[in-house]
């Protein structure tokens, strides 16, 4: 069921040139070097410490690790993370 939904989304974004983050409800992450990470379209905060940030996504979650993390700004579905980013990892949910 999920795969089928994803396939239609893929097809839409490829053939109709619709932005994939909107169609597929995926997060858009903009980073400026290691300094900032701007994450849009997430599905809620799971964990935040000064060296790790976990955000919920539609399918799975996003893990960002680093040092001295500060959430510069927080809006519904938007987060601006500041600090020294070392890793951005996508972790797919098992089901």
């Amino acid at each position, binding site marked *: 069921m999920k795969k089928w939904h994803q396939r239609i989304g893929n097809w839409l974004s490829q053939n109709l040139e619709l932005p994939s983050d909107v169609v597929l409800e995926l997060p858009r992450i903009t980073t400026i070097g290691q300094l900032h990470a701007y994450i849009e379209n997430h599905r809620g*905060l799971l*964990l935040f*410490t000064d060296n790790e940030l976990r955000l919920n996504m539609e399918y799975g979650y996003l893990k960002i690790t680093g040092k001295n993390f*500060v*959430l510069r*700004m*927080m809006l*519904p579905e938007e987060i*601006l993370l500041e600090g020294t980013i070392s890793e951005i990892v996508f972790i797919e949910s098992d089901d």
Partner: protein
Amino acid sequence: MKQTQGVFFAGYVTIKVSGHHPELFFDLCARKGIMVWSIKKVSKTECTGNIKLKDISDVKALRRKTIYKIAFRNKKGLPFFTNKLLYRKPLIIGLVLSLLFVTYLSNMVWSVNVKGVNSEIQKKIENQLDEYGIQPGALKFNIGSPGEIQQKLLNDIPELLWVGVTEKGTTYHLEGVEKTIVEEGEKLSPRNLVAKKEGVIVEYYISKGQPMIKINDVVKKGDLLVSGELGKSQEEEDKEEDKKGTKKQLVAAEGEIIAKTWYKSNVTIPLETNYEVLTGDNKKKYYLRFGDFMVPVWGFKSPEYKEIQLEASDRSVNFFKWELPISFVKQTIHEKEKVKEKRTKDEAKAAAIKQAKKELQQKLGKDAEITFGKVLQESMESGKVKLTLSFDVLEDIAKSQPIVQGD
């Protein structure tokens, strides 16, 4: 980052959230549309972040549904700053007082300089200025404009020919030129006195020269009245006898020849006149003017005058050397009355004679003695009386004429 702009002016608070996974409380806030920023994890169970001042009540309401604890830490921004400032009342009062004091000092006369005249007149000018209230320590609002001061000084000190008043900040500079009374030259060139106009001689006083007229003589314009050639008549008498007799002596003839002269003047005077007079009742009002906006300071009631005449003086307020866009306005409201006057023909005639006499006096100077002669012509025309009047005038008709020495 745009969202956090202007947050200083609205005011913001740093809150500390404690509990299990405190960051989730901020996530909850963000979901509810409350802006949060600068979130830091202090320890495992504590998290700090900023929220806007106006969101505090929402955050408190949200907290009640959770198990977290909130502590308010730093209060920052303009609202807190002003609150703190207002708490220190003496500071505010001192600040306002000092500003008022500087404004007051900036609008005071600090010194008056008088230049260009000798010490006697300088003293006189200074005394006069004291009388007007222009002295160090006086407020500038009560002082007229430099032009007015100039006019007043010229009227009150007859020795002054000209005075220039300039207002430079808090200083008044006055520059005067005194009248130098030129003594009439002792040596006048020889001259005769001749008649300025036609008339009958009434009286004469001659201090120098030889009279060529007698009382009741009729003279025409240009007739010789007093001759500057002494011994002329003798010479004429002796002409036949001795041609090389006494030598002519030339002097500057001097004297006053009063003669009766006649003037004709035409006057037109309406039977009905409208004019306005001030009743003498007046009221003063004071305003502070900010641009076009007037704030009354004193004199709030409007007088119940039917007809008014306004007189306003405007003085701008200075702060140090700058002119503030504020000015002090003094307004005087005079009561005015319209007078409608109807005259009979006789009254109109009397008024016409009076008017013509006044005009004539102005033309001839105050030494002339004018007596009314008679009405030569009289006509009525569309509500107006037209008169031709004749006047008898006693005046000095002497005019000097230099003697040209041909040989």
